[in-house]
């Protein structure tokens, strides 16, 4: 796939998705459609889709235990093993998975001792080439924080962890950025981080030729979608304020399965909601499923205990082998000649009869 076409296609798709609720709500006032039906449909697609996908993956068995070992295995007491990177049992696997899922440990592996040519010889230092890891981490964590913060729209009373997050997230920005002087609410770090990270991830795809080469519309599309989601959110919060009470009424209604569509919510909200709906509906059909897939990855979630705990292949079937008897039948004469022990001696002057296998 060519990157220009990929970007144009994804850009066009996302623009269209923005226009749909804009026209739909702005011109035709289809608030119920965009405020209730679409979100419900998207949520249903999201949950059912994910469950179906995970079940589908789960239906395929794991015939062999194939962890990628990234450290010394467990052998002798006097040899220090690496229980996390080469887990011997479930405990190690759990730690390995936690580090993988929460800290993207494998991506972090890129950190390495660097040898480079410099004036006057070889220079050794640690290279900080972790932008991918950092951006990925910033993106996923800020996304999570933003998601959790949104609970103040869904829940009444607002849970205390949301307040805590709110104050932590907003705390550092108080009076730091010029926005504060403009009468806008305090700026969330997570908002900035996420937008910055997504933008970085996009430009990285574009800028690094190898990555540009492998990128598909399926890579640009979710990035654009998330960018649009973030930007509409930011617009709503800082610039095109909407009636928060009404939004909350709608959101709580949705979650309590007694949807109401209050008057007076700006179109921008419906755009935001629609993009979110598309994102979650697209989720089960896309690479975004990696969030569930990582837990199932056989190179990460299994322990390297093959030699001491038997692993059974559920679809194992018998195969044809070349038995020792067949082998000896073919080479018996020569084996005897050179003095190798044999199971059967050569019978004098008779056609060797069929031997049965053990």
């Amino acid at each position: 796939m060519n990157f220009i076409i990929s970007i144009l296609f994804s850009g066009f798709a996302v623009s269209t998705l923005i226009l749909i609720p804009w026209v739909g709500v702005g011109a035709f006032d289809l608030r119920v459609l965009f405020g209730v039906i679409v979100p419900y449909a998207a949520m249903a697609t999201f949950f059912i889709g994910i469950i179906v996908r995970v079940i589908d993956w789960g239906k395929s068995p794991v015939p062999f235990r194939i962890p990628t070992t990234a450290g010394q295995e467990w052998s002798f007491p006097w040899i220090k093993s690496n229980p996390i990177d080469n887990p011997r049992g479930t405990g190690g696997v759990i730690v390995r998975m936690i580090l993988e899922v929460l800290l993207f440990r494998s991506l972090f592996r890129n950190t390495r001792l660097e040898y480079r040519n410099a004036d006057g010889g070889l220079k050794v230092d640690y290279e900080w080439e972790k932008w991918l890891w950092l951006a990925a981490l910033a993106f996923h964590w800020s996304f999570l924080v933003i998601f959790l913060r949104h609970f103040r729209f869904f829940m009444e009373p607002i849970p205390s962890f949301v307040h805590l997050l709110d104050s932590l997230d907003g705390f550092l920005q108080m009076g730091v950025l010029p926005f504060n002087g403009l009468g806008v609410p305090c700026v969330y770090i997570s908002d900035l981080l996420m937008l910055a990270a997504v933008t970085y991830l996009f430009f990285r795809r574009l800028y690094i030729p190898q990555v540009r080469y492998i990128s598909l519309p399926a890579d640009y599309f979710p990035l654009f979608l998330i960018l649009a989601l973030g930007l509409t959110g930011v617009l709503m919060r800082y610039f095109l304020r909407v009636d928060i009470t009404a939004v909350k009424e709608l959101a709580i209604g949705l979650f309590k399965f007694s949807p109401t569509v209050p008057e007076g919510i700006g179109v921008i909200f419906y755009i935001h909601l629609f993009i979110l709906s598309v994102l979650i509906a697209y989720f089960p059909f896309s690479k975004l499923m990696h969030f569930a897939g990582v837990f199932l990855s056989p190179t990460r979630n299994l322990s390297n205990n093959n030699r001491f705990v038997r692993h059974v292949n559920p679809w194992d079937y018998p195969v044809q082998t070349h038995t020792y008897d067949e082998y000896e039948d073919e080479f018996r004469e020569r084996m005897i000649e050179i003095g190798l022990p044999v199971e059967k001696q050569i019978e004098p002057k008779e056609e060797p009869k069929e031997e049965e296998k053990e």
Partner: protein
Amino acid sequence: MRKGLDTTRAVVETSLKNILSDKRSSIIKKWRDVIVDTYPSETQRFFRKEKDLFANPVGNIISKDVETLYDELIKDDDDDKITLCLENIIKVRSIQDFKPSQAIGFVLQLKKLVREMLESKAPINGLSGELQAFENRIDDIALLAFDIYSQCRQKIYEIRVNEVKNQLGSLLKRANLTFEIPEQEPEL
């Protein structure tokens, strides 16, 4: 590998030499680019940017040896060093997807780079004698590169032959002890 470039050992005169020394880094950079540009566009950035010696041997060999090669070229000649640098670069290129001309063409392209640089900088006229000598020298290096390329290819084939010999085992072969799966027998 081959020593000596005695055929046309021209001494590059001081004035041209000075210019070449002044412009050292810019010419070296362009010369590197000439080489790196022969790789697929998706990979060029990696070869250029990845500075770790072990993560990117190709790029680092090109980078380092082109520099040394250039310095040796404009300095008083140390043929051994020149041969070594050429060997390092050509060894890599002779096993990559290049035709022979493509693998060693970068040597001759230095002429073009130098001329372009001179045209923009100083009148060529005053230097024509020296330039001629310098270019002759590059021609010699190109011939040397050709030799080295051939040796590398030769080496590959030697290794192949030796491997077969070693595998087909002096010992076993002599004693005719191995078993070959015979051409298909109908009953199998």
